[in-house]
C-alpha cells in the first residue's frame, strides 16, 4: 500500500516556504547591482518581461508537475515519463553541490554577526583599523582575514571560525527539516518575515542618511538607451532564473506536499511577486546607503568598487556602517541586523535545497527522513570543510560558475525541451488541463508559447554567451577539480541513479499508470 505523503499544514505555509526558498542572498547583493549596471530604472522593463515570459511560466510548470505527480523531482519526472527521471536527479544533485558552498557564505555571515555583537560591547567595530598602515580598506582587510586569504599561491590556512559557522549552519538546516515539512512550515513563519522586517528598518535608516537620494537616483533613474543592448536583456532573464529557484527541483518537491487538487497558477504568481518585490525593496536599502558612502568617500557611485556580490555584503556595506556618524553600539546593532538578515535569507534557501535532495532519496530508496537528513547534513558539513581554507573563496567562485551560473539554466532548458518538445503533445495538454482545472487563475496559449519558444530561446542564447565566458577564463587544475569534474560527475550520477531500480520505483510506476 502506498505510503501517506506528508502535507503542509496550510497554503500559507507552502507559499512562505517557496518564498523563503526563492528569496536568498542574491536578492540583496545581486539584483540592485544588476539594475544599476544595466540601465537603472530602465532595467525593470526587461526584468518584468523576463518575469512574465520565463520565470512565472517555469514556476507554474514545476508547481504543476510536483502537485500532479506527488513526488520529488526525480519521482515526478519518472511519473511524467520513465525516461526523464535523470533530469530530476540532475537538478537536485546540482542543488546539493551548491549547498556545500552556499553554507560557507552563511558561515561568513555568522562570523560577521558574531563580531558585530562583540563590537556592541567593546566600543569598536571588528574591522576598524584592520588595514593598519597599508592605507587600504579596513573592511577588505578584515574580510581577507576572515577568509584566511593566502598571500602566495598556496591554499591558505584552515579557518576555524568559518568551520564553526559552517557547523552552526548545518545544525540549523538539520533542525529545520529533520522532522518533516510540518516543521519547515513553522520555521519559515520566522525566517521569511524576519528579514523583511529588518530590511524595512534598513530602508528607513538608509533613506534618512544624508545623500541617500543621490544613491537612489543611480538605482532608479532610467537610461533608456540600454534597452537596445542584448546584454541587458540577458542580464534580466539571468536574474529572474537565478532568483526564483526554478530548475533546482525544490519547487517540485514543495508542491508535492500540497494536495493534488490545490492551486498552482496563483501560487506561482504570489511567490514570484513576493520574491521580486523583496529584491526591489532591497535596492532601496543598498543604494540609499551607497549614496551616503559615496559622499563620505568623495567619489561618485560608478567609481566605487564592490557594489554587487559578496563584496557588497562583506566589504562595502560594513564600510558604510562604519562611516555613519553614530554611537559604536548603534553601528554594531545595525551590522548585527544586516548579517542576521543575510542569515535568515540564506538559511531557508539552504534547507530548501537539502530538502529537495532528502525527499528525492526518501522517494527512491524508502529510507527514513531522519537518516537521510542526518547523512546529508553531516556529509554537507565535511564537504564544506574544503572551502574553509584560505583559497576557499576562489574555489567557491569556480564551482558557482559551473553549477549555479551554467548548470541550473541548463537543467531548466532540458526540462522545458523535454516537456514541450519531446513528451507527447497529448500528455503536455493533459498537464495543462490539470493545472487549469484546479487553479484560481488559468494558463492559456501564451504559457505554452513561453515554455516552448521564448524560455528555451533565451536559455540557449544565455548558455551560448556564458560558454564563451567560461572558455575565456581558461582551464587550470582548480577549474578541473572544482568546476568541470563536479559538473560532469553529477550528470553521470544522475543517469546511474535512474538505472537503479527499487521497490519504490515500481510503486511509482503503478501510481503513474493509475
Amino acid at each position, binding site marked *: 500500500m502506498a505510503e501517506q505523503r506528508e502535507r503542509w499544514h496550510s*497554503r500559507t505555509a507552502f507559499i512562505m516556504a517557496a518564498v523563503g526558498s526563492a528569496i536568498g542572498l542574491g536578492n540583496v547583493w545581486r539584483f540592485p547591482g544588476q539594475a544599476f549596471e544595466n540601465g537603472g*530604472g530602465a532595467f525593470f522593463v526587461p526584468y518584468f518581461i523576463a518575469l512574465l515570459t520565463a520565470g512565472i511560466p517555469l514556476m507554474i510548470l514545476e508547481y504543476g508537475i510536483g502537485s500532479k505527480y506527488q513526488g520529488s523531482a526525480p519521482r515526478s519526472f519518472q511519473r511524467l515519463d520513465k525516461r526523464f527521471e535523470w533530469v530530476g536527479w540532475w537538478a537536485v544533485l546540482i542543488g546539493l553541490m551548491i549547498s556545500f558552498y552556499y553554507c560557507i557564505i552563511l558561515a561568513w555571515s555568522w562570523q560577521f554577526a558574531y563580531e558585530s555583537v562583540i563590537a556592541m560591547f567593546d566600543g569598536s567595530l571588528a574591522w576598524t583599523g584592520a588595514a593598519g598602515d597599508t592605507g587600504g580598506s579596513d573592511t577588505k582587510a578584515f574580510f581577507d582575514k576572515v577568509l584566511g586569504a593566502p598571500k602566495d599561491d598556496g591554499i591558505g590556512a584552515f579557518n576555524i571560525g568559518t568551520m564553526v559557522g559552517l557547523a552552526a549552519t548545518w545544525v540549523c538546516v538539520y533542525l529545520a527539516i529533520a522532522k518533516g515539512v510540518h516543521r519547515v512550515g513553522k520555521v519559515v513563519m520566522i525566517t521569511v518575515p524576519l528579514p523583511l522586517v529588518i530590511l524595512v528598518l534598513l*530602508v528607513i535608516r538608509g533613506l534618512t542618511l544624508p545623500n541617500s537620494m543621490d544613491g537612489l537616483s543611480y538605482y532608479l533613474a532610467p537610461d533608456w538607451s540600454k534597452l537596445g543592448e542584448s546584454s541587458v536583456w540577458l542580464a534580466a532573464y539571468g536574474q529572474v532564473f537565478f532568483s526564483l529557484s526554478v530548475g533546482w527541483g525544490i519547487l517540485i518537491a514543495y508542491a508535492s506536499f500540497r494536495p493534488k487538487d490545490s492551486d498552482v497558477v496563483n501560487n506561482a504568481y504570489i511567490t514570484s511577486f*513576493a520574491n521580486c518585490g523583496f529584491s526591489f525593496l532591497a535596492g532601496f536599502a543598498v543604494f540609499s546607503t551607497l549614496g551616503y558612502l559615496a559622499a563620505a568617500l568623495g567619489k561618485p557611485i560608478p567609481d566605487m568598487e564592490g557594489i554587487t556580490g559578496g563584496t557588497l555584503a562583506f566589504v562595502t556595506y560594513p564600510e558604510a556602517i562604519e562611516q555613519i556618524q553614530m554611537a559604536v553600539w548603534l553601528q554594531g546593532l545595525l551590522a548585527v541586523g544586516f548579517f542576521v538578515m543575510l542569515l535568515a535569507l540564506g538559511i531557508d534557501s539552504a534547507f530548501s535545497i537539502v530538502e529537495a535532495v532528502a525527499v528525492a532519496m526518501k522517494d527512491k530508496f524508502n529510507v527514513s527522513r531522519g537518516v537521510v537528513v542526518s547523512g546529508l547534513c553531516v556529509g554537507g558539513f565535511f564537504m564544506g570543510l574544503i572551502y574553509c581554507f584560505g583559497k576557499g573563496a576562489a574555489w567557491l567562485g569556480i564551482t558557482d560558475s559551473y553549477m549555479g551560473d551554467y548548470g541550473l539554466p541548463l537543467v531548466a532548458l532540458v526540462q522545458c525541451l523535454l516537456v514541450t518538445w519531446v513528451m507527447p503533445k497529448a500528455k503536455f495538454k493533459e498537464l495543462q488541463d490539470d493545472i487549469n482545472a484546479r487553479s484560481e487563475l488559468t494558463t492559456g496559449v501564451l504559457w505554452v508559447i513561453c515554455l516552448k519558444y521564448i524560455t528555451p530561446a533565451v536559455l540557449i542564447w544565455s548558455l551560448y554567451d556564458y560558454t564563451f565566458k567560461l572558455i575565456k577564463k581558461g582551464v587550470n587544475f582548480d577549474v578541473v577539480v572544482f568546476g568541470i569534474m563536479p559538473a560532469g560527475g553529477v550528470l553521470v550520477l544522475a543517469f546511474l541513479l535512474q538505472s537503479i531500480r527499487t521497490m519504490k520505483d515500481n510503486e511509482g510506476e503503478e501510481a503513474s499508470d493509475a
Partner: protein
Amino acid sequence: MRSLMTKAVCLSLLALHAVAFPMSLVAHETKAPLEVVEELAAYVAQDGADFKGANPLYKAAKAAIAEEAAAVADENARPAAKRYGEIRSRVADVMRRNELPTSAWLMGFFGATLLWGGMAFCIGVARKRGGGKGSA
C-alpha cells in the same frame, strides 16, 4: 483575517515606497547651473584637463573650464585618458545630482505598484484560505 493582514502588509510596503518618493523630492537639492559650472571648473582646474561634451550644460561649463584649465601649468602630470575618464564620471555625477529625479521615481512607482500591487491582487484572488479550489 490572515488574508487581510497579508494584504495590509503588501499595501504598507507599497506605502513605504510612496513615502520614499516625495521625501526624495523634499530632500533633493537642486543646483543652479552656475553652481554646477563652478563645481566642474574647480574640479577640472585641479587636473588641468581639457574637456569635451555635447550636453548643453557641459557646453555652458566649457568656457569657465577652459579658463580655469589654462591657469594650470602641469597639464601632463597624468595620462590624458585617465584624466578624461575621471572628469567624465565626475561631470555625470554632478549632472545627475542636478536633475530632478522625476523619471527615477516614475520607474520606482512602476516597479512598486506592479510587484506589491500584483501580489496584493493575487492574494485577493485566492478564494479559499488554507488551500486552492476544493482542497483541504
